């Protein structure tokens, strides 16, 4: 990989992405081969906002590599509560650990934090900005289910504040993928992201209704429309209902449509879809471990035995 840190998928080349996915596939196939590879190594987990899957999958990944974690714990129980800056916190924990994973509610937090440390830093979400390790497991899942070229991918829901969406869009732009963004007007993709995608020459179209594009999709990536974004509950109910899918919705889809979701879901995907061949979201979550093992392997020392 070209960089010492993983801040945004924007800076990953297609070759970088394929290297991580290929390594993840190797590890997935033979996890015992790396079971003790990082014995004695420590990963620092700094989560300044709640996380279940991302945090636990990094923790699991590190332990499956034979290493261990040091966890800052919740913001309430840490020195952040006393007013310590992110810059100071990462500087201190970088002295304890061999790599850091940072989630923070402010955009650009990982970029700034990376300027204060000399160990690898992985961005596990910076506000509405980026979430590149999620993207890598998303891509791994897409590759397993549908391949990564000559593809139509629909991304639906809260595209404005959804960091997983931004990271995924940047990464898909490196492949031969037609991207369709489906959202209410108020939650469209940020103009900055659209600007970048156009600069990359990506194939991008925006829609306000899933039915306009569903039949052409190979993958449908659903995200949660967050209630707290709407000052008016009625307005939320009206909009959210239009972006939920159930078995009836999928009657208009290709038989091999892959449905994904970064989770947690609330009511965007009817549980009746869970038992169909369309559902890939739990597989997607499980893929977080081998993909993050691959990432840690590459950042912690690559070929070190």
């Amino acid at each position: 990989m070209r960089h010492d840190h993983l801040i945004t998928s924007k800076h990953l080349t297609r070759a970088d992405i394929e290297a991580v996915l290929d390594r993840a596939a190797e590890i997935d196939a033979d996890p015992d081969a790396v079971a003790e590879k990082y014995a004695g190594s420590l990963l620092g987990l700094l989560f300044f906002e709640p996380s279940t899957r991302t945090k636990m999958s990094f923790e699991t990944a590190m332990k499956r590599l034979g290493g261990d974690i040091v966890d800052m714990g919740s913001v309430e129980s840490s020195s952040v509560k006393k007013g310590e800056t992110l810059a100071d916190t990462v500087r201190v924990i970088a002295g304890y650990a061999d790599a850091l994973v940072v989630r923070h509610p402010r955009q650009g937090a990982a970029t700034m934090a990376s300027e204060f440390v000399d160990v690898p830093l992985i961005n596990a979400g910076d506000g509405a900005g980026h979430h590149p390790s999620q993207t890598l497991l998303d891509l791994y899942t897409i590759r397993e289910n549908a391949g990564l070229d000559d593809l139509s991918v629909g991304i639906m829901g809260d595209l404005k504040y959804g960091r997983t969406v931004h990271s995924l869009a940047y990464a898909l732009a490196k492949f031969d993928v037609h991207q369709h963004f489906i959202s209410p007007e108020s939650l469209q993709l940020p103009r900055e992201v659209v600007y970048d995608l156009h600069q990359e020459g990506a194939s991008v179209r925006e829609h306000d209704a899933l039915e306009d594009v569903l039949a052409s999709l190979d993958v449908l990536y659903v995200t949660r429309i967050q209630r707290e974004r709407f000052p008016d509950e009625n307005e939320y109910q009206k909009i959210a209902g239009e972006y939920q899918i159930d078995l009836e919705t999928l009657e208009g889809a290709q038989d091999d449509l892959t449905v994904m979701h970064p989770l947690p879901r609330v009511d965007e995907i009817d549980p009746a879809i869970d038992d169909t061949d369309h559902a890939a979201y739990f597989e997607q979550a499980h893929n977080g471990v081998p993909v993050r093992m691959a990432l840690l392997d590459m950042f912690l020392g690559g070929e070190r035995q």
Partner: protein
Amino acid sequence: MSGDDHELRVSKIRDGTVIDHVRGGQALNVLAILGIDGSEDEEVSVGMNVPSDRLARKDIVKVSGRELSQEEVDVLSLIAPDATINIVRDYEVASKHRVERPAEVEGVLTCPNATCITTGDEPVTSRFDVLDDGVRCAYCETIVRESIAELIDSR
């Protein structure tokens, strides 16, 4: 009446900098960038909405006793991309050049994104990449195309 006649409305200076061809209405923002608020000894003359062959209407700022640094000129270029910088020594123009837009500016603009890490309490200096038609925060990536002057840090 020629453009030169209009320029005479603003008195000549002995030593200092004349910033000419500033887009109409931007003179006060130029002063803000230079940190000039009238509290120091600098003698400043400002011409606003002066007729101009090149810009139709332009502003002129003359600052006595001070030659601008390259950093100041870089930032000026964001709001006055057509400006010419004349360095005056003993009433003569010692050098004259157009501003050039830098690749980035550091520490002079405040990001308008309230959730950007640079607007919190972190020990970080704001940094913006300069685009053809605006600026972009190097941290949160917000693009600003209009009202860039409103982002100037008050010094």
